[in-house]
């Protein structure tokens, strides 16, 4: 009964989405306030309906209702409750429901925080989001319905893929989708602006915080995924340039470019056409990413052939959304205007260069991800593009981008003076080059990449200090502290996010330069030393989990005779799917991770064992979190809050439906 309620809620949501996608946009064009005012209640109703559907699926999982096909395929009676709930987004159908749910959540947020927007603008934004949601609901209801029944019901479920039975599964997909779908708001703003033909600085100011928040979620989502791969896949890598990862990285690159280009549109009215294009690009890549990962096309292009309806729908949907918005762009963008001019040396030109570099980087990832698919689909043979490709492309592309990142914030808008910049930055340059050259010798090893990585992160930090000093010197205050406090939060957000990149680069550089990996056979009682740490293998014992049995290795770790920690890596065998899983044991620290995973049992209780010493690896994810925190800090800036409070005061009557909707 409950699954039918969910199914019915989705059908109702589809009807509401139809209304929301058509009437308000038509109303905005025809100037009908009645039609335009329908956007808000429709968006809220849709949110409520999809929420009901989502809860129904959750309920089916919680109740182990194996008469629902999707539940039977992705859960098992022995699967713990939190993983049963996470299994909602464990496969194709449920992820689509999560996607749609998050889309309506963002819609709901737009209805809450858009009271200061002109009525027509809001109607168009919600209308566009309604159309996107219409596509997803239609897809779910026609070819991938999560509520489809299995009659007769299965006695027990097939269980969730053991790889996914992990806390990472609970957090990573929702975060990632919050980011993906968040770009739909920026996209809807861009399409609304194209439809309305008014694209001014105010437009950029409105869409900026939305883009930044989505970007923060995406950053955290990608970092969580990377951390998950690190400890769950059991070979200690943190990024594999796997198509699944690339799918989330491409929208991130486009989104990063979009944030910076929005800054120019907001402050200087420039880059308008480009900003709109980036907004379309970021969301299109999010869609592409969702479908790449969730349609099964990556595991096999021919998976499409087993269910051609799904594949066809996806291709048609992508073509309509991407093609349609690009057509609209080609038609309307010339009216938008170019915005103010600027000099060859100016903050605008540097941001433009940064944008171009990010987009080229994105395009190179796109090439490496899609080209093998195309070849395969056309029957021209099977190839894969190895990680070395991405490494060779990224270092030379990101080096100038990061160099510019140091100069950009110091350069003046419109026209900057190169000699003055050189004067301001000469000590920053000297300090970072000197340290980058000398530090590797202190650390005991020199390679060009090591020096380059250190140089880039030092450059970010030193130039940041230089421009904070520069900004403070313009302020008249009593103390340095009050001067620093007087700088706006948006500025501090940028500083923090840029420093996050520096932390990230330190992590990557140190891991690449100094990690020690060793695969070896260990007998009981045998010791091995890597990175100054001595690991003693004390044998393995059998332990039982809720839905698996495991061999648990016992490792005693010492450093120079002092006890450091005990580590317990596991080799699990999940009963239902008869699948082995390696659970690595990791001892994390600020300066290093110790990583132990079990290979296979050999004779006499010996095991093949993998021992890693990974210096600074947590800085990689730490850097991402700092970037996201920087983004949030920037969004909390006074200028957004002030604008929001002022317009709330001006439009108190707009609040009444809000309270009604909330109740």
């Amino acid at each position: 009964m409950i699954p039918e309620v969910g199914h019915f809620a989705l059908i109702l949501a589809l009807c509401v989405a139809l209304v929301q996608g058509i009437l308000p946009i038509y109303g905005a064009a025809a100037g009908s306030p009645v039609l335009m005012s329908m956007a808000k209640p429709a968006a809220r109703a849709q949110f409520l309906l999809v929420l009901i559907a989502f809860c129904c699926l959750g309920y089916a999982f919680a109740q182990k209702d194996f008469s629902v096909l999707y539940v039977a395929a992705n859960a098992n009676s022995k699967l713990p409750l939190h993983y049963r709930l996470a299994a909602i987004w464990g496969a194709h159908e449920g992820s689509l429901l999560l996607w749609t749910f998050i889309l309506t959540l963002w819609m709901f947020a737009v209805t809450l925080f858009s009271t200061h927007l002109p009525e027509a603008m809001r109607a168009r934004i919600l209308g566009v989001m309604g159309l996107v949601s219409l596509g997803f609901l239609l897809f779910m209801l026609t070819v991938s319905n999560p509520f489809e029944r299995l009659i007769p019901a299965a006695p027990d479920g097939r269980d969730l893929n053991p790889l996914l039975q992990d806390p990472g599964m609970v957090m990573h997909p929702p975060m990632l989708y919050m980011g993906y779908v968040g770009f739909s708001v920026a996209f809807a703003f861009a399409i609304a602006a194209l439809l309305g033909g008014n694209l001014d600085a105010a437009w950029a100011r409105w869409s900026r915080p939305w883009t930044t928040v989505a970007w923060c979620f995406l950053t955290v989502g990608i970092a969580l995924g990377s951390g998950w791969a690190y400890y769950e896949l059991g070979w200690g890598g943190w990024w594999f340039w796997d198509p699944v990862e690339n799918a989330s990285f491409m929208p991130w690159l486009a989104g990063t470019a979009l944030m910076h280009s929005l800054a120019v549109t907001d402050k200087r009215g420039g880059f308008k056409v480009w900003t709109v294009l980036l907004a379309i690009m970021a969301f299109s890549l999010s869609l592409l990413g969702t479908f790449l990962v969730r349609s099964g096309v990556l595991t096999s292009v021919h998976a499409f052939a087993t269910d051609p309806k799904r594949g066809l729908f996806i291709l048609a949907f992508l073509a309509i959304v991407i093609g349609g918005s690009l057509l609209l762009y080609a038609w309307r963008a010339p009216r938008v205007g170019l915005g103010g001019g600027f000099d060859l040396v100016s903050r605008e030109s540097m941001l433009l260069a940064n944008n171009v570099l990010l987009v080229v980087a994105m395009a190179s990832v796109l090439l490496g991800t899609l080209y093998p698919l195309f070849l395969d689909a056309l029957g021209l043979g099977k190839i894969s593009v190895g990680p070395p490709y991405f490494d060779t492309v990224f270092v030379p592309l990101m080096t100038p981008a990061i160099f510019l990142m140091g100069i950009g914030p110091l350069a003046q808008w419109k026209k900057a003076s190169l000699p003055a910049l050189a004067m301001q930055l000469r000590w920053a340059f000297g300090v970072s080059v000197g340290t980058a050259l000398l530090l590797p010798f202190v650390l005991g090893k020199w390679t060009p990449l090591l020096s380059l990585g250190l140089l880039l992160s030092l450059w970010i930090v030193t130039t940041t200090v230089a421009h904070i000093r520069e900004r403070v010197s313009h302020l008249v205050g009593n103390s340095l502290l009050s001067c620093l406090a007087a700088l706006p939060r948006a500025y501090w957000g940028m500083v923090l996010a840029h420093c996050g990149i520096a932390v990230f680069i330190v992590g990557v550089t140190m891991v690449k330069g100094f990690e020690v990996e060793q695969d070896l056979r260990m007998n009981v009682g045998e010791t091995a030393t890597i990175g100054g740490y001595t690991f003693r293998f004390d044998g393995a014992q059998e332990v039982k989990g809720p839905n698996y049995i495991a061999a648990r290795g016992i490792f005693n770790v010492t450093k120079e005779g002092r006890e450091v920690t005990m580590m317990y890596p596991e080799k699990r065998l999940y009963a239902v799917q008869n699948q082995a899983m390696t659970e690595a044991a990791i001892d994390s620290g600020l300066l290093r991770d110790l990583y132990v995973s079990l290979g296979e049992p050999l004779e006499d209780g010996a095991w093949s064992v993998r021992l890693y010493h990974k210096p600074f690896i947590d800085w990689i994810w730490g850097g991402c979190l700092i970037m996201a925190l920087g983004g949030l800090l920037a969004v909390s800036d006074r200028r957004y809050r002030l604008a929001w409070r002022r317009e709330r005061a001006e439009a108190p009557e707009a609040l009444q439906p809000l309270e009604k909707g909330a109740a």
Partner: protein
Amino acid sequence: MTPRQKRFSMIGLGLVALGIASALVLNAFNSNLVFFFTPTQIENGEAPKGRSFRIGGLVEAGTLKREGDGLTVHFVVTDTVKRIPVTYKGILPDLFKEGKGAVAQGQLGTDGTFVASEVLAKHDENYMPPEVAEAIAKAKKSGAQSSNTLTMSPERIKP
């Protein structure tokens, strides 16, 4: 500079940068493509010497041997027609099993043994890497069924 010259120099610089970037990208792309070959293709001498490539097929049952160090393994990869011996030093992935599909990346040694630097066997128990399924299907199509191979229909093992 007049605004016109300014604009031209800007566009020129942009084009040069874009040109350099694409040259760089395409060059790196070209030298890092990893091709895939089936055991039959390798036997026929189609695989490159001295360049890394991927081989895929079934790990023939009963061929997995482990050396005394516990790490170096030998096994045979087959597409049900031709067999290629593979050597790998390291820990095999969780899903590596005899009789199941696997993909390995590495180079062909002079003695005809494939020296793998990486063995891939991801995903779940019933998953067959598409390369493997195709290798077997291809070998089947050529019709030359040899005696020392597994009998397994590609339909059954396709994902």
